Each structure stands twice: as C-alpha cells, then as structure tokens.
C-alpha cells in the first residue's frame, strides 16, 4: 500500500498534464473493470513526438502512469516510443504492487492506440 517517493511526486506534481490545443494524435483508453480512464494527446512531426499531454481519472496508479508516460514520450522518436513497455513505466515510477500493475498496462495501451497509424 505504500507508494514510492517518485510515485508521490508524480501525483503531487503531474508532468505534462492537460490537452494539447494543436495535437494531431489522440487516444483514450478505459479500463473496463474499474472504469479508470487515460486520455493522451500528442503533437507528432517528422516521426518525433514533439509534445505529449495526458488526462486521467481513476486510482492513483492510473494518474501516475499517465504522468510518467507523457513525460517519457515527449521528444522521443515514434519508432522508439512504439517499443516502450509496461516495465519501462513501472521502472520510471519505482514499481507498483502487483494488484495495481494494470495501470501501467492501460498507459501502454493508450500509447499503442495513439501510435498505431504510424508504420514502424
């Protein structure tokens, strides 16, 4: 039940929160079990994610994974971002109890959905 310091920092100071006014890629995923939601907006130019913003509703891990994801992908090549996994997110926030790891999965799903129109 006790979360890491980096986890708490994401919660207290979310990175890249909000919605990009000039985004050209959107994705929203909902966890069908608990109703948690994650919305991602990206501005992608020349194969690079220039800017990334997230909005999230749900349990703290969902919020924190959204924040960690948005921070992580900003500036990344789309091709690199496509290879991110659940574990990269978990590493970034110093882990989650196993019952809560679905939050990282939701974040990766949102990213995949957003990037699926870009060929590898």
């Amino acid at each position: 039940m006790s979360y890491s310091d980096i986890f708490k920092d994401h919660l207290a100071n979310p990175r890249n929160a909000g919605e990009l006014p000039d985004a050209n890629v959107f994705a929203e995923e909902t966890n069908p079990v608990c109703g948690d939601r994650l919305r991602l907006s990206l501005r992608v130019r020349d194969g690079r994610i220039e800017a990334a913003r997230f909005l999230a509703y749900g349990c703290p891990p969902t919020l924190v994974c959204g924040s960690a994801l948005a921070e992580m992908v900003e500036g990344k090549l789309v091709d690199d971002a496509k290879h991110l996994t659940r574990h990269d997110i978990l590493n970034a926030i110093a882990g989650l109890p196993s019952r809560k790891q679905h939050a990282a999965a939701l974040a990766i799903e949102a990213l995949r959905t957003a990037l699926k129109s870009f060929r590898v």
Partner: protein
Amino acid sequence: MRRVYLDHSATTPIDARVVQAMLPYLTETFGNASSIHQFGQEARAAVDKARRQVASLINARANEIVFTSGGTEANNLAIRGVCEARQTSGRHIITSAIEHPSVRGMVEYLEQNGWTITRLPVYDNGLVRVDDVRAAIRADTVLISVMMANNEIGTIQPVKEIGALVRGRRESGQKHLSFHTDAVQAAGRAAIDVELIGCDLLSFSAHKMYAPKGVGALFIRRGTRLFPQQIGGHQERERRAGTEPVPNIVAFGAAAELARQEMVQRNEHTARLRDRFEREVEARIETIVFNGDRRQRLSHVSNISFRFIEGEGLLIHLDMQGVAVSTGSACSSGTLEPSPVIKALGRDEELARGAIRFSFGKDNTDEDVEVAVEAITRAVESLRAISPLVRESIAT
C-alpha cells in the same frame, strides 16, 4: 509538517487518562483474572469494575456485558451465536444494505449455509425505514441486525422504533425474534440506553472511544439465548472463553466512563468543527455532494463526494499534506470496489468512487479545520486539472 488526523471513525488516539488507568495492569498488577490467588483477585476486581463502567455507558447490567477482542468479534458472536441457538425456530434474518463488513460478511456466510436474508434499502438519505422492517418480518425471522450508526456516513438508524416493533412481535408470540444493533460507531458518541432502544444485543468497541484496539463488548440482554463461539474456558460466564485482556479491559472501562461524562461537550465540539468544515468546503469547492442525511447523523462525521475525481488519489494527496482521511470504511481499503454504502444511496459509480469520509475527534481544533480545508481545496484542484471528466461535463 502539521499533521491533522480526521479519521476518528477508523480509530481514535488513546486518551492520556486512559493510558494512565491501564498502566498499572501492564506493570505490577499483571495477574490472570481466573487465578484464585491475590494476583488473580486484583485483576478480577479491575475487570469487574471495568465491566460496571462499560455497562453504565449503555445503561446495561454488568452481567449483560461480554468482553470480546473488538467490534468484529462482538458482531460475529451476536449473529452467529443467536442464529446457531435459534435455527430450529427459523432461518430468516433481516439486515440493512449498509452494515459493516463484520455484520455483512457473517450474514453472507449464513446465507451460503441456507439462511434467507432480507437486506433493507436505505434510500438516498442512508436511513432504514421502520415500515420496511415491519413488512420484512416473517414468522421464521429469528434476527434483525440493523446498525445504530453507519461507519461511513454516520447516519443514525431508527433503532428505538425497530426495538419497539420487535418487542411488540415478541409479546404477540414470536418469542424467538431477537434484535441486534452494531453500535461500534455510535458508542461514546451518541447516548445509548439499551432499555430505551429495546435491543437484545448491542456491539461496541474500545478503540473508537479513545481506548486501545483489541477489546470490545457485546451486550447480551438477560435471557437472550446465544451459542458461544470462542470455546474452552469459564471466562465471561461461559459465553466467551479465553484469558481476559485485563489492561485493555481496564482501559475500555476508563474510556467508557470518560465518554459518559464528556459526551455532551465532545459532541458540541465535533459538531461545531464538522459544521464549520462543511460550510467552508461547500463555499470553496464546486460540484460536491454530501452523502447521507445531514441531520440524522453522528456529530463527528462528514462524507463528501467530489465529482470528477477518485477518492484514493485525493486521500494520498491529502496525506502528503499531513491530513489523514478515509475513503469509505478503513476495513474495506485494500480493495478496488467503490464503497457499497455510497452505492446503496443510489449514487452513480463516479460519486461512489469520489467519496471521502472526514471524521473529527475531541482533540481536533479550529486550526485543523483550516489546514484541512486548504489542503482539500488544493488537492481537488490539482486532481480536477488532470481529470478528463471535467471537460466532458463542461462540454455537455
């Protein structure tokens, strides 16, 4: 960082006077109350005194009090104990939709073992209706278990009216019908008189009234039949075996006496802080919903749903600011399901997930209220800033 504890429904700090009262029993006076010698008799005398103090709090006789390890055991003992003793008369139980897990869980256990359960609705105000109770009673009903005050929203049920109903039924021949009420949240906070209520069994717990965790009590009205659940010793007049936890029992007694003496002031104090808190939260934060009837409730609890956000995030936000609160029952934390109590009020999923319980205590101050209101305002703002639901609600 200033720490503000607003979770007195989960547990209370121990009153320094209570610690003083129990300390001798953690040191010199360590005897086993079942021992015949002086060491034992000193312990026995202390337990006897505490039993009278605890009985006084609810206007019971000392020999109607059985000490248990806490409210959970008291509820379990009441329900399983009465049902096992009465099962030849019938196998129907009436309870409410918002009982504590220690009542709900035991009733579910019996349901799996062939009992029939009627769970009464509590409508949008969190209150059971006496007419519903009346309509639910069947010839084979052996137990009605309706809590005195709810642990999440603090609503106070019409237990006196239910008690009168049960007495009436018994007088007209339904001898095997008993009435149990879980008063774990109410005891020490609301005046309780078992004669007035007319209940046959009443559970309460020390750690909700400034005494240590690990001791509670079940009031069992003289003449009420019940099968003991903890077996193997003559303690508690054969109704609950096991070496009595003398220091805890002494502390419970002292706390019960203090609660009786100070109840009016404590309630005035917590009601004043709670009401001020609610006014300020309402003034500063939009789109909130108060849960549960606001008049017919304990003086120390406030339960609020904050739209667009989820409770646990808010809780952790507040915790980082030193403010301790709870999402629903402390006992059901660790699970993901939104509170069944808030859902029973007919609230949608979002409101059920956004509910926070603030519960005040006798040692909270006005400054605590100010710190808490500031912290909540900040936390709600921050969480709403990242919530996709906010935009949707503006869009619609």
